[in-house]
């Protein structure tokens, strides 16, 4: 990859992640090191309970780092104020918004909050960015609907549009394809791919759709109990990274097809 022509968006070195309180520190993973350049689509995979959410929470500053370095846009994440960080990275979470009475347009407009005044007044520029976000996610025809009227697939696009409206170089998504059928899973991942190519966004998403991620993502982060590896899907297949992802009794990885099958 031409990592010199594009600048580095995420860079972590010898990072330890986990939960800590006054009494003790529970390290989930240590010696995590990878760097992501701009315009890359990164898929984070790993079995349930391996610590994908912990890593995502750390990357989005919802959880402090235990030790090591984590830089967003060449600046330590701890050095950002929450407002500064909100113009660097936006998120799509698994939790549903508290209110579903919002219209699509209202919800997407909330993404502009870091850029507006205390009254949240939208300038013409804000409105243009919102409109663009709605068009990029193919939501223009739904913009006056209330969120409770939408399907899961449409809702997911609304959340992505909100993140786009926040207008950040980096977007981090926690399992954006859950609860969706195959068609809509593929549609969401293709949309993310399109955004990296056309808008030069850097996108990191966690997923259980390993087959899909292998086909479409530029880089993958594979979490196993032993370590976290980061590379392009084809290199990871060659290295056998997916073979150790799950215990072999029930599913095995086929290197030729790039798929898991039930034994």
């Amino acid at each position, binding site marked *: 990859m031409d990592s010199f022509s594009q600048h580095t968006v995420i860079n972590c070195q010898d990072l330890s992640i986990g939960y800590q309180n006054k009494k003790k520190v529970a390290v989930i993973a240590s010696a995590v090191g990878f760097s992501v350049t701009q315009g890359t689509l990164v898929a984070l995979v790993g079995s349930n309970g391996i610590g994908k959410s912990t890593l995502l929470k750390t990357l989005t500053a919802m959880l402090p780092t235990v030790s090591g370095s984590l830089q967003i846009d060449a600046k330590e994440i701890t050095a950002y104020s929450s407002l500064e960080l909100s*113009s660097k990275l936006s998120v799509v979470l698994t939790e549903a918004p*508290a*209110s579903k009475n919002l219209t699509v347009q209202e919800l997407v407009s*909330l993404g502009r909050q870091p850029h507006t005044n205390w*009254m949240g007044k939208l300038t013409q520029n804000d409105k243009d960015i919102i409109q663009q976000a709605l068009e990029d996610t193919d939501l223009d025809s739904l913009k006056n609907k209330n969120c409770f009227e939408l399907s899961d697939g449409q809702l997911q696009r609304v959340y992505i549009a909100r993140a786009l409206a*926040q207008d950040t170089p980096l977007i981090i998504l926690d399992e954006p394809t859950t609860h969706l059928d195959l068609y809509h899973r593929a549609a969401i991942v293709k949309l993310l791919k399109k955004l990296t190519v056309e808008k030069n966004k850097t996108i990191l998403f966690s997923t259980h759709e390993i087959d899909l991620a292998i086909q479409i993502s530029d880089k993958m982060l594979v979490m196993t109990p032993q370590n976290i590896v980061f590379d392009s899907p084809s290199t990871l297949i060659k290295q056998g990274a997916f073979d150790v992802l799950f215990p072999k009794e029930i599913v095995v990885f086929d290197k030729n097809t790039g798929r898991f099958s039930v034994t």
Partner: protein
Amino acid sequence: MDVPTLEVFNSIVGSSSKTSWQYIITNYRIPKAITAIIAGGGLAISGLLMQTLFRNPLAGPFVLGLSSGASLGVAILILGAGAISGIFSTFLLGPWSLVVASALGSFLVLLAVLAVTLKVKDTMAILIIGLMFGSLTGALVAVLSYFSDAEQLQQYIFWSFGSLGNQTWQGISILSLCFFVGLLLSIYSAKSLNALLLGENYAKSMGLKVKKNMLLLILATSILAGGITAFVGPIAFIGLAVPHLTRQFIKTSNHFVLIPAVALSGAILMLICDTIAQLPGIVYTLPINAITSLIGAPVVIWLLVRKRKLIF
């Protein structure tokens, strides 16, 4: 007492033909109407704030034990003052101390409920915890009443029936102050309220200082609900029902629109309730708390049956 409509206007401008009518209008009916407007608007705003803050459509000053907290504050003041006799107790029972005790009581309960909310993410659990705080403070009030004498007890019981009447102009100015401080804090927080519609984590990711803003909202809610409860007693259902009623007519979740709209609807509904409480031709004035419940409860049931779900 019937006062002809024309005489009402004459009384306001000070040229009524009967001084007794003028006295009734300026010292009884107008203060009562103003109290109704402020109480209705303020309670409705506090209900709206709590529904967004707790991400719960059933939140309201009454449901979450806020009114009970205010009751406890007032009970401690009125019933506890019995223990301290003489001049000191009359000083204690001035309008300001009633407000402070009531607001403090509701503030503490709200803080406790919120502290639990941060631990327990389940909205049903939060409601149950609110109810538990309600019974807890209720029990404390019961213990206090058991040990106080009849006169103090009567004073407390009358307060707890709720009444919009008998307010002095001094009381009304304190009430208005509470209302405007609460209103200003709410409007100042409207942008963060909008962000909180997405939930705490989204709000944080958009650069909102969640803790500071939540504290501000709690403060606004307890000043509104606590201050109003101090003067008019615990009034049920306005805080819970009015935001839902307003959402039927206003198709936006933007708090910059909702706050004034909810305040207006609350004021109107409270005036209607007050009118029903003292319909012309009926000698007695019914307790306002009974009327708001008689209207509020069916509204909530109707909304639930019609939509099968309360959304906010």
